[in-house]
């Protein structure tokens, strides 16, 4: 491959006024020996672009280094064919002149370093070769409830074939066998039957020639990758003799919904004492029976115990919800369903009083108006309080409920004839496997193929409780989508709803988070769009978000692999399987291109065409480190995550806030892609300190690749031991969790670290 390097320095936007462009050109020429090195006062203008284009066609320049503004700006203008031209952006504007004093020697040195770093990267970078394939574009929808039906119908409308698998003999899911739906629009008094709309949806799906429906079927196993999933579908009716059906699909929408929390665990709330203490779902079913499947409106709710009409009902909200011993979360729907049921009771049993004991009444959005309407009913009594005991008086056949912490200013007793426990939603995201009586995967015992024991390469918090029974994936990392908390699939919820950590598999509806049917319909549409996007992008060889349209992917130099399994374990998306020896088997279609595997690899056999240990290493090596230990000669290397930290630095520049000129920033795909060799490269060169700026990690992580910043922090733990061995202070390396909006804090963060490094003194390896 020819390396025809062209360096173009823009002197517009005050760059020419703040820097000595002449000197920049001379240094760039001396250090990088480019074919072309020129400056232009308006590089992004037509004249400037033509200058570059002419050089490309006449001088065969194929490595274009543009020293101008941030790589996040002017992407539409500096847009050359990525498969034949490598474009390297050097950020002289946001990261140099906007944050440093003009016409200062340190500012000049900063700019020179950045140009040299850009040029060294450009020299080593190769051109991406996209993996274009003819892939299957069918969407597999698992679950035929409200979400699943909507997902299928929308996918079909968009022109995609659908395979819909439903475990039960009928479509329609949870609402199918219930009575009334709650109204979603004012004036909240239509009182419509729950099947209204649902039946139309079912028949629309059944009539569609694009939707292939498997009722009474479930997933036996799924293998493969987006665009070529192999799904085995087997009968769920119990006739095990039948052969499973095989379907090849492009992507998967998981709409398996929820199941009610097991009320048997709620004997503290009296469940089981008398048949008159029942759950909200049981009450719904009772109503469904009484109404004869919605055919009759005129009936009276009767007690199960003696058959007399009910005269008082008490609802216990958050029964086993928002409770550390049961479900710690709010299921969002129980308040509305209790209010709806209260309205039904008042309608069918006009003499009945309804008591609702709540922790908080949570009626989302417009539903608040329904709550307000119900408040006005003189027969509905709501009070905040905690139910401290439920007792049953056999003689009077009454139920006594003790409530504490009420707003009456004390504890109260209420006697009632029926108690309804408003239990929450548990996602149907697979069942926990209880093999060998252990529910946790022990990651500490991973051995390399050579038999030598490796230190645990994955932080324990990423350990997944193994589950199965839903998708039964043949992935090395487990059979189901990894959980975030409480059994809901893991995803970066803020930036990427519908995502799971399995590319091409999109949970929607209440398996993703507790939702009602209205929100589930929206969810279905969102997930289907994601599924379609995935199929289309993958077949063009492009990444799905967050690196949308990226055509590079990691290359594994397998002959040098030591089978340490770090990449197969640490990939947050389960993209890498392994053979029986432990050799990684990479699936490019599942890959999000974050480079976490590259950061994990101790022998550095994983690399991208334009991003590798060697390329970044050469960038580090091109930094000029003065030996004279004065204050301005300290050099701090900053690895900045491209997703949040790098934009934060840009915004800092936009606000013209000053930042220390001691720092040299290298953007990385994710902090998780930092290979430990780069620390060695930097420290052995005499760099005095290394600062990692990346996303927040932990339970409410912001990492776009879910685990990257956490892994970086974990690996740094191992690194610190090495530093101590080299008689280097471990404080020379620091990781800071940063959000995009935290740009104001950057000067302080950097200043603080620079001062810390200065207090440690210069790197003793300087000049070696």
């Amino acid at each position, binding site marked *: 491959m020819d390396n025809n390097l062209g360096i173009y320095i823009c002197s517009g936007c005050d760059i020419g006024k703040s820097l000595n462009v002449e000197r920049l050109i001379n240094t760039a020429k001396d250090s990088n020996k480019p074919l072309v090195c020129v400056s232009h006062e308006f590089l992004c203008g037509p004249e400037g672009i033509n200058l570059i284009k002419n050089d490309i066609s006449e001088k065969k320049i194929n490595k274009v280094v543009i020293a101008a503004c941030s790589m996040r700006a002017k992407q539409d203008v500096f847009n050359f064919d990525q498969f034949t031209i490598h474009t390297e952006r050097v950020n002289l504007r946001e990261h140099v002149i906007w944050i440093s004093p003009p016409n200062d020697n340190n500012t000049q040195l900063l700019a020179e370093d950045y140009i040299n770093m850009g040029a060294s990267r450009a020299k080593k970078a190769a051109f991406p070769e996209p993996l274009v394939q003819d892939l299957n574009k069918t969407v597999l929808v698992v679950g035929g409830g409200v979400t699943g039906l909507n997902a299928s119908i929308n996918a079909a409308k968009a022109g995609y074939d659908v395979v819909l698998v439903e475990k039960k003999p009928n479509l329609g899911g949870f609402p199918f066998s219930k009575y009334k739906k709650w109204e979603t629009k004012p004036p909240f008094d239509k009182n419509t039957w729950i099947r209204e709309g649902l039946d139309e949806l079912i028949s629309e799906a059944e009539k569609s020639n694009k939707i292939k429906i498997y009722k009474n079927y479930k997933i036996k196993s799924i293998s493969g990758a987006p665009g070529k999933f192999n799904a085995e579908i087997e009968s769920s009716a119990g006739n095990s003799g039948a052969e499973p059906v095989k379907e090849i699909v492009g992507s998967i929408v998981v709409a398996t919904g929820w199941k009610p929390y097991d009320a048997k665990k709620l004997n503290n709330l009296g469940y089981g004492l008398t048949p008159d203490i029942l759950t909200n779902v049981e009450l719904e079913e009772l109503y469904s029976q009484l109404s004869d499947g919605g055919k009759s409106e005129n009936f009276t709710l009767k007690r199960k115990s003696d058959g007399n009409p009910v005269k008082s009902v008490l609802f216990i909200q958050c029964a086993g919800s928002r409770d550390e011993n049961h479900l710690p979360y709010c299921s969002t729907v129980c308040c509305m369903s209790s209010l709806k049921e209260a309205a039904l009771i008042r309608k069918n049993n006009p003499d009945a009083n309804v008591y609702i004991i709540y922790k908080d009444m949570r009626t989302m959005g417009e539903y608040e108006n329904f709550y307000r309407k119900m408040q006005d009913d003189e027969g509905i*009594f709501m*009070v905040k309080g905690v139910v401290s005991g439920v007792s049953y008086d056999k003689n009077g056949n009454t139920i006594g409920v003790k409530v504490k912490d009420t707003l009456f200013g004390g504890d109260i007793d209420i006697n009632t004839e029926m108690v309804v426990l408003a239990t929450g939603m548990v996602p149907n995201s697979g069942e926990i496997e209880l093999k060998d009586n252990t529910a946790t995967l022990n990651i500490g015992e991973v051995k390399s193929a050579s038999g030598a024991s490796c230190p645990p390469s994955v932080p324990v918090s990423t350990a997944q409780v193994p589950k199965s029974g839903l998708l039964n994936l043949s992935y090395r990392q487990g059979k189901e989508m990894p959980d975030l908390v409480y059994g809901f699939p893991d995803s970066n919820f803020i930036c990427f709803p519908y995502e799971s950590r399995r590319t091409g598999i999109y949970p929607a509806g209440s398996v993703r988070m507790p939702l009602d049917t209205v929100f589930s319909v929206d969810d279905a549409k969102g997930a289907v769009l994601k599924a379609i996007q995935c199929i289309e992008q993958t077949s063009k060889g492009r990444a799905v978000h967050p690196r949308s349209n990226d055509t590079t992917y990691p290359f594994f130099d397998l002959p040098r692999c030591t089978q340490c399994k770090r990449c197969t374990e640490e990939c947050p998306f389960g993209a890498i399987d392994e053979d029986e020896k432990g050799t990684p088997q990479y699936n490019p279609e599942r890959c999000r291109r974050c480079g976490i595997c590259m950061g994990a690899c101790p022998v550095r056999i994983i690399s991208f065409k334009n991003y590798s240990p060697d390329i970044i290493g050469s960038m580090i090596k091109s930094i000029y480190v003065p030996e004279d230990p004065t204050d301005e000669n300290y050099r701090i290397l900053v690895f900045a995550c491209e997703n949040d930290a790098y934009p934060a630095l840009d915004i800092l520049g936009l606000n013209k806030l000053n930042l220390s000129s001691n720092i040299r920033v290298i953007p990385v795909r994710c902090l998780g892609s930092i290979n430990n060799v780069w620390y060695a490269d930097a420290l052995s060169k005499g760099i005095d300190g290394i600062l990692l700026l990346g996303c927040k990690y932990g339970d409410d992580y912001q990492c776009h690749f879910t685990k990257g910043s956490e892994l970086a922090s974990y690996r740094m733990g191992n690194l610190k031991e090495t530093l101590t061995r080299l008689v280097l202070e471990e404080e020379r390396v620091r990781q800071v969790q940063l959000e995009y909006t935290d740009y104001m804090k950057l000067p302080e963060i950097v200043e603080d670290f620079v001062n810390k490094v200065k207090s440690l003194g210069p790197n003793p390896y300087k000049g070696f």
Partner: protein
Amino acid sequence: MNNTVIKTDNELVKYIKEVGESNFKKCFQCGTCSAVCPLSTEDRPFPRKEMIMAGWGMKEELTADLDPWLCYYCGECSKNCPRKAEPGELMMSLRRFLISAYDWTGISKLLYKSKYAEYIAILIVALGVLIEWAVLFGLHPAAGATLSQAVSPEKVDYFFDWPISAFLAIMLTSFIYNMYRKTVLSDKSVKIPLSLYVTEAWSLIFNFFTQYRYAKCDDSEESAAKKLTSGKYNFWLAHLFLMISYVSLFVAIVFFLDWFQSENSMPILHIVLFDYFASIGLIFGTIYFIIKRFSKKIERSKFSHHTDWMFVILLFLTAVSGVLLRASIVYSYSVSAIFYIYLIHLMILFPMLVIEVPFSKWSHLAYRPVAVYFANLKEKAKNLSNN
């Protein structure tokens, strides 16, 4: 200690809804109302407590509650309520509920529930007056008779003034005893020593004649003089003026009817007794409140129940007809003119006294100072037993 077993009563909830315009069911117990109330205390967290008791229809607790009488409806709670639940109006509704709860005859409840019941009741009393008048004095005066001959003051005293005084005294006393029974005797947690009743009697008289708690309705840091000049005391003073005028006229007429029928226009004694002054007070006061109720600008008069209107209008008409009667006597109109004006005056005055005083809005003149007195007694007794 046993928990309170809550008994809810949705008929009561309905009744409270009917006798006012509070959306008390909308309350979600944030407590803003009690926090902004200048009169509410930690021990008496009204109106928050009343909001939930009313919402749940807790009849026993509500009947035993004195706090509605301690509220003077400054309206801060209603202004600040995040749910527009109108706590101030609830306290007003609860006063109406309490008036009907103390009244063992059940008439109050009827009057509050239906405005037609009130119209009919007033008409019946007015007709009764007409019949009684016809029996006593005939339907027109005898030719050539003087006023004293045509309408004998003694007969008015014997057959109108004194019976009505006795009726009102009996009714109000029995209702107040009922109130005492429900609010003080029923409360087993405090025992009030007899001596306290005597030593605290001053608070009853003081509150009756000053309505001092009205002034506390504004708890801004300004000086009293500033509040006075900026009109913050206007409502209180107008209310006090009206009440003093009413009481002095009532006393004067019961004991000095003779003079009212004489042509002596400038007796020093009666000026001292505020008779003229009181008449001005009544007319000015009622016009002031009618304007306020029409304009609906302040919280206190935003909502007007039919009994509120009936009260001010009857009072106004009584005062106007009374002044007209007195003028016709002083300026020596013909006896027959005075005879008819006299009759009309009584046909307005008596419905007001018989219907409004014991069974409707007027009764707050008695209940309020008594409630303050009872509340004081209970508080003092609690402090005594604690020490």
